[in-house]
């Protein structure tokens, strides 16, 4: 979906930024959003406060609510997928082979 939305809206995008934090994802405010995801899921409260404040400054209250909502939704969906063994279709695997290698997600051992 990220690749498709970036293509349709002609937003420059480097997918390596998803898994390699040294790479700028190029999406506007992308670094701030990635910092926020990391802080929410892995960080301690002081880091969360800093990151939350950055999102508020750059994207406003609606941006903070929406970003929190997306993280929340994928925390739910990831659990459902993992717990029920939803397979990745052969068509998807074929279509995303180059992208998966670039992002490095083939290392996830439950594909």
């Amino acid at each position: 979906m990220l690749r498709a939305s970036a293509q349709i809206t002609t937003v420059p995008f480097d997918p390596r930024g998803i898994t390699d934090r040294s790479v700028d994802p190029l999406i506007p405010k992308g670094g701030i959003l990635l910092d926020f995801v990391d802080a929410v899921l892995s960080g301690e409260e002081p880091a969360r406060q800093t990151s939350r404040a950055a999102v508020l400054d750059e994207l406003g209250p609606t941006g903070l609510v929406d970003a929190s909502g997306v993280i929340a939704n994928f925390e739910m969906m990831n659990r459902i997928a993992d717990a029920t063994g939803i397979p990745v279709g052969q068509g998807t695997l074929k279509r995303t082979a180059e992208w998966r290698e670039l992002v490095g997600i083939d290392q996830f051992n439950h594909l």
Partner: protein
Amino acid sequence: MSFDFAGSAAEVRMDIRRLFRREWDRLALAGTWWNGTERGDIARVARRSRSGGSGAPPGTSSVPGAAIEAAGRVGSAPAGIRREWVEGIARDLGFPRYIEIVGITSRLAAVDTFHTGIGAEFEPFPEPEPGEPSHAEEPFARPGAGWVPMVGGASITQALSLVNAESTAQEDMHGPLYLTYEGMAHLDYVGGLSRAQMELVAARTSAINECFY
């Protein structure tokens, strides 16, 4: 009233407040295979596991050990779940009871994560309501390519379809927090974030969780 988000860093939309209140109502009531007390205890185990605890919190003795194990595992370490483990849990509980645990636990992760994001304290759990589970069976669910029986082909939107109420609750959560299933087709959507920004957040979340989805 619950979900007032006191002290949060931003005003929370009413559709999200209503969603979470409805989810808490669901949690308190008897479900399809677990009663309200059991559903609350499953949620307590899951929340405890996500904060690094293990096992059953004091006072949560209403559910069997396999349910405690399932709630803890789905709550805290879903990436490590394998088919053999799911089949073992299902041998003890049956697939429908397992699916209801997955539903409760995964939606709780969404509710609590949202609170963490906006800087609000977790909502206290609701008091359970009396009542018995409906035991409503889904006659069209079949084993397939996934690890659990589903209605139709194995897909993320059908993952909980063995227990219809849990599948409905999953879809209810999806729209206000992200996009409706239909709305996902709008790749140029812009709200508080652009669609590309939303997908970047989603992709990073899934990467941290080591989930291809």
